[in-house]
């Protein structure tokens, strides 16, 4: 282990990029793109060092701890466990991919664009490595504003509506979460402890059941809106449809995971009693989300909307896996997050590929692309199968584990979710068939002469995702090994919790 602050380097390498970009003339696009890519790659390279994480070592490794605002005991404490490691890796990979992919599509306000994307990267990485609730909140909000700008400036025709909806939705949840964070820290401090926001100190403190119930609801709102969980998902389709391709990749690939991560890292270990008490309702909502997302996906005329709604369904799996409280469920949930990040990120990228050529995403406008763009069709097919959950690809592992976990909870829940595995095959394959094999629409034929297959940049952007989706599907072991200890810790806490005894829920 070196003396380098590896984690800080991972998180703040993009900041150096931002500062450099500020001093580049705004019409020097090549230099700006180069700096952005190098900054993101630097972060990725540093994050490779995290692969040295020892699953059976200390809980949080690569720790750094510096006093920040001593008046309220806020500290710059960062560190990673297996859960953070895999999500940090996902973030750095997808950020590099989306920044590289943006080279061609983004031609307006290039300087602002890459500065914003790098800031977004800092926010997301910071959330995954924070071990101080205040620091976590700061990064959490920091990830919000750049995405707001990305959708609002470089988005589609209804971008302003979509981005305002996104930001207001998210802010309502996160501000209430801030109150809950304070309430938790203050409850801990008023028991005679020093005032602190340290995660490790606040975890395991026996909070009063009333506080747990209210704080859990506040955390739940923030995370459930981010995931997004039915019925808090309505911002997602709008945001995805209007976002530029790279924005969609990051949004689906990483930002939604912030919600899932929040549940695992904060809701469950901090407020186990409330988590146990609320679990049945959340499982109910998750099952609805899984079914609803899949059903609505079937009828979407727009490719991006279809994938957006399928995200609601897939993230429902994550929520289900989290709240059945057993090893398979939790492992499945985490694995599904990673897999969904890779698969959906790639699918949005692929939709971007056709959108760049035709400026349209209507499924009805497509058709016959298989003959015209065979390589594109092949790759699209690969990720379609990954999304359905075909064995051998990453999607299968997560869904299978979640179903396994939910079967231990209730056969009915497992049965309902199994049904969705079929529906997801229906909507994905039907979409695939209409886009690639159906008779080409007259509309699409107009593009026939100019339609080109995937460019080198597009291949390069997709290459890491192809490797990951196959690699994780064939060899899930390393990821599962890394996430087993944190998952086990969460389970130990939750399964020892008696539920809410001092507070009666209204049902």
């Amino acid at each position, binding site marked *: 282990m070196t003396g380098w602050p590896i984690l800080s380097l991972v998180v703040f390498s993009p900041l150096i990029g931002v500062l450099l970009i500020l001093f580049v003339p*705004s019409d020097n696009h090549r230099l700006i793109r180069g700096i952005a890519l190098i900054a993101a790659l630097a972060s990725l390279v540093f994050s490779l060092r995290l692969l040295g994480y020892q699953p059976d070592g200390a809980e949080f490794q690569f720790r750094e701890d510096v006093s920040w*605002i*001593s*008046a*309220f005991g806020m500290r710059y404490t960062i560190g990673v466990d297996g859960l953070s490691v895999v999500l940090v890796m996902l973030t750095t990979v997808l950020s590099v991919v989306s920044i590289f992919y943006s080279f061609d599509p983004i031609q307006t*306000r290039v300087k*602002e664009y890459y500065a914003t994307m790098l800031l977004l990267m800092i926010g997301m990485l910071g959330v995954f490595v924070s071990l101080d609730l205040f620091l976590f*909140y*700061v990064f959490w*909000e*920091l990830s*919000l*504003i750049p995405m*707001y*700008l990305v959708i*609002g*400036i470089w988005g589609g025709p209804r*971008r*302003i509506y979509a*981005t*305002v909806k996104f*930001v*207001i939705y998210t*802010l*309502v949840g996160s*501000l*209430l979460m*801030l*109150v809950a964070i*304070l*309430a938790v820290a*203050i409850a801990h401090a*008023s028991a005679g402890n020093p005032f602190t926001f340290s995660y490790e100190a606040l975890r395991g403190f026996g909070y009063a059941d009333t506080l747990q119930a*209210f704080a859990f609801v506040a955390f739940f709102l923030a995370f459930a809106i981010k995931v997004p969980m039915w019925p808090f998902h309505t911002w997602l389709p709008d945001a995805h449809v209007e976002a530029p391709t790279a924005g969609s990749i990051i949004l689906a690939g990483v930002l939604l995971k912030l919600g899932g991560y929040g549940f695992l890292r904060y809701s469950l270990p901090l407020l186990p009693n409330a988590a146990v008490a609320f679990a049945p309702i959340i499982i109910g909502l998750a099952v609805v989300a899984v079914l609803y997302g899949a059903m609505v996906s079937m009828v979407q005329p727009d490719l991006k909307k279809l994938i957006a709604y399928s995200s609601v369904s897939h993230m429902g799996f994550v929520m289900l896996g989290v709240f059945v409280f057993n090893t398979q469920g939790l492992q499945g949930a985490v694995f599904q997050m990673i897999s969904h990040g890779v698969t959906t990120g790639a699918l949005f990228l692929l939709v971007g590929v056709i959108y760049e050529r035709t400026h349209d995403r209507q499924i009805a406008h497509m058709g016959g692309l298989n003959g015209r763009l065979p390589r594109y069709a092949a790759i699209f097919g690969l990720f379609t199968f990954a999304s359905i959950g075909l064995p051998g690809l990453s999607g299968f592992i997560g869904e299978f584990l979640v179903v396994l976990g939910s079967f231990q909870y209730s056969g009915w829940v497992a049965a309902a979710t199994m049904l969705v595995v079929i529906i997801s095959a229906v909507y994905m394959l039907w979409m695939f068939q209409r886009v690639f094999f159906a008779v080409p629409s007259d509309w699409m034929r107009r593009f026939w002469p100019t339609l080109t297959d995937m460019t080198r940049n597009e291949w390069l952007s997709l290459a890491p995702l192809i490797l990951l989706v196959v690699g994780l599907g064939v060899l899930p072991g390393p990821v599962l090994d890394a996430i087993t200890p944190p998952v086990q810790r969460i389970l130990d806490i939750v399964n020892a919790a008696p539920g809410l005894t001092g507070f009666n829920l209204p049902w």
Partner: protein
Amino acid sequence: MNSTDLSAILPELALTALVLVVLTVDLFLPRGDKWLLTPITVIGLGFVGYACWTVWGLNQTVFAGFYRVDDLSVFFKVATVVIGVLAALFAPSYLSQRKLPLGEFNVILLFSLSGMFVLASSSDLITLFIGLELMVMPAYLLAGYHKTDRYSNEGGLKYFLLGSFASAILLFGISWTYGLTGSTRLSEIGGLVSHGPAGLIAIAMLTVGSTFKAAAVPFHYWTPDAYQGAPTPLTGFLSVGPKLGAFALLVRVFAEGLGVSGADWYGVMAVLAVLTMTGGNIVALAQTNVKRMLAYSSIAHTGYILAGLAAFAHATDPAIRSQGIEAILFYVLGYGVMNIAAFSVVGMLQRDSRRFGGLAAFAGLAGRAPALAAAMAVLLLSLTGIPPTVGFFAKLYVLVATVDAGVAWLAVAIALNAALAAFYYLRVIVYMYMREPEADPAPIDRSPLTAFALAISVAGVLLLGLFPDPVISFLRASAAGLI
């Protein structure tokens, strides 16, 4: 009066001397050299700030009990100086474009600051009232400063009439207080509430009079017109200076004078706080003029600050009570810096004096003036309460105070209101970054002085948000004397 009395009021003496210097120099400066008044004012205020530092830790009551130089007053005075410096830096460019005199502005501004000094240090209701009038009389003048402009006249007159009305109510409350307790000393009016209905009437009038000055709903009707009519950088000062004074007044009367019976007026303050933040935000939502929007949003900020006072009133533990006061202090300082700077940006877009600060002036600003747009974006995010800015930390302080005092429902109200406010603050960002400029875009004032003041304000907003520790230890020490 003796010599210790005089050394305790060194800051006031320095400020008064500065007023006289500026007044005299203005008389003899040729028309082309009037700009010199700004450096004189700013450097003079620097000396006043230094004088404040010399009385730090003195904690002395002087002038036979009418005046108190405690650390709390020093905090208010330092904050006043900060706001005064920013106001003096922001105004000149705007004023000179409109051929409005700079000398009078500086003098009036300094007079208003001296009122805030007196207000902050009063230990007697009479001194308090004198300080208040000394602060608001110049403020009326500033609101009507553009004397050939109809809106400025209207705003000034409204401000004056309603302000005088509020002063009368406050004065009436003071006389009831004196009648009931036989004293005007803040330290001796604590028993006011024990006088039955008459005591309640007195408290009600004190509440109305002082929250009027702070622009709390439902006593806020003067605010939008006065703020809209005044020359924009002066509006910036009016929205933060007299507000700081009003909160000094509220802290002195309620926390210091009536603090012992906090439980009796906690309910009123809490309800006023929620009404104010919600009312201000809802009306701000409907504004299409940024200047007016900022005016209404300043009402909402009053609500957040009042929540700090409510937290003070509800708590019994001294440490938690102190937190309520600290939250107020931090908020008025942070709000002062960010709001005066935000108004100045509106002013910079009014180089063409027919522009009234409509949202359209902001359209496409990011393309036309990237640095200005970025500065405004930081200020707006700070006003919204997004980290890492001073506005976020100020809200956080109030939230900590309320949750700690056991009034978490107030914290929830603040959180929901902050989300509501995000809608209209971010709308300006939408215009700046996500819309194309209008066909005939508003010319931008690129005066280096204004840009410099804006740069230090934005730097302050970010630095205080990231590293608030020094300020917090300063204001903790200031609030400690009160509890």
